[in-house]
């Protein structure tokens, strides 16, 4: 699709539509956002910045609420879980 942009999710290039949230990109990449303190997987839940479940690292800044951030071409996203380390 001509309107797609590309971002990096855990180092892999991924095409997403313009206007997609980072949380959507993480879901599209087939993974989740972070591990809880007890090591359980957490991902986007409320989608409106309230529940804080979708935190991940965006462009080097940890603990960002990814449902509130729109993807920008070349953005680097890292999920905060054991799988990605």
């Amino acid at each position, binding site marked *: 699709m001509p309107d797609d942009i590309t971002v990096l999710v855990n180092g892999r290039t991924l095409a997403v539509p313009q206007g997609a949230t980072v949380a959507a990109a993480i879901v599209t990449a087939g993974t989740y956002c972070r591990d809880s*303190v007890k090591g359980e997987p957490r991902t986007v839940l409320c989608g409106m910045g309230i529940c*804080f479940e979708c*935190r991940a690292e965006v462009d080097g800044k*940890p*603990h960002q609420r990814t449902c509130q951030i729109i993807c920008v071409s070349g953005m680097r996203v890292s999920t905060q879980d054991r799988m990605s380390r």
Partner: protein
Amino acid sequence: MSVATYDVVIVGGGIVGVACAYECAQRALRVALIEQDVIGGGATAAGMGHVVVMDDSDAQFALTRYSQQLWQELRRELPAEVEYEQCGTIWVAADEDEMSEVLRKHAYYSRRGVPVEVLRALDLERIEPNLRKGMTGGLLIPEDGVLYPPCAAQFLLESALLKGATLYSGSTVSRIGSGQVYLSDATTLSAAVVVNAAGASAPALTPGIEVRKRKGHLVITDRYPGFVHHQLVELGYLKSAHSVNADSVAFNVQPRQTGQLLIGSSRQFGAEHKDVDQEIMWRMLQRAQEYLPALAKTSAIRAWTGFRAATPDKLPLIGQWPADPSVYLATGHEGLGITTSLATARLLADQITGKASAIPIEPYLPSRMASLEHAHA
């Protein structure tokens, strides 16, 4: 109707109450514990869980050190979720005045057999690189530790129950006295000894005791593992914790096992409402950033308040209440209840069972309050 009878009924399931239940049950006393809400859900859950030796007075030193050693003895039995970690405290000196206090404390602790180490400016920079450059030095107390108080309280409760103690959960106590405990659901318990361990609420059950609420705020961040490695406290803390009336804030940051940072602290008298006070929280966070500038880039996820049970002479009340010989007090621990809970329980159980204690008990006896009143008059 039959009245349930115990040797000891303890009112209040905070860390002090459950420690007392655990100790009394260990000594084969018939024990009941009453908690109106959640075990360890009051000041216990609100505090930092810093297991710290303090030296505001010789009596405070004796109690905190004794109790810290009891925690160390118990350490092997503590389940992982108690998160006991001997991370050490660093008292940070920002200027030469505070550095002279480091040297005084060093001499005081050394004389009493507590391992301590004086840190110079370069040592501090190396050990805690996130501290602002230009600090004068500090004092490292390696045996200080941290734990997660609600889980510690739960562990002590379960240990007490295994030893035969009884828990009355969700029951509110309306009155105690003359060996009776009256619950608001019309149940009455009878006991030779009734322990008031209701923290800052203790005066409601035992009018006349000098315990006041001293409100505190805490903030916790998201996970930043390795941001700091010790509990870091400003030496100015002593000045602010000492000032008895004014609202105060002091830098006090603790690393949790999860990588989160607990940020304190504040002290307020006369603030009775549980709400977070934005102005004092702001001052507290500003103070923390003066010591750890990179905190500004971290994100906080939660803030809350709690009420310390403060006494005029900064020592807890442990022992018989002169106005009613069946009532014993175990309250007034202010900001040191987690640290001193185990020693409090020992001293209380020693008095109940007529045993000699490991440290002199006189500084903590409630009967001292009568002489304090004379001193104030």
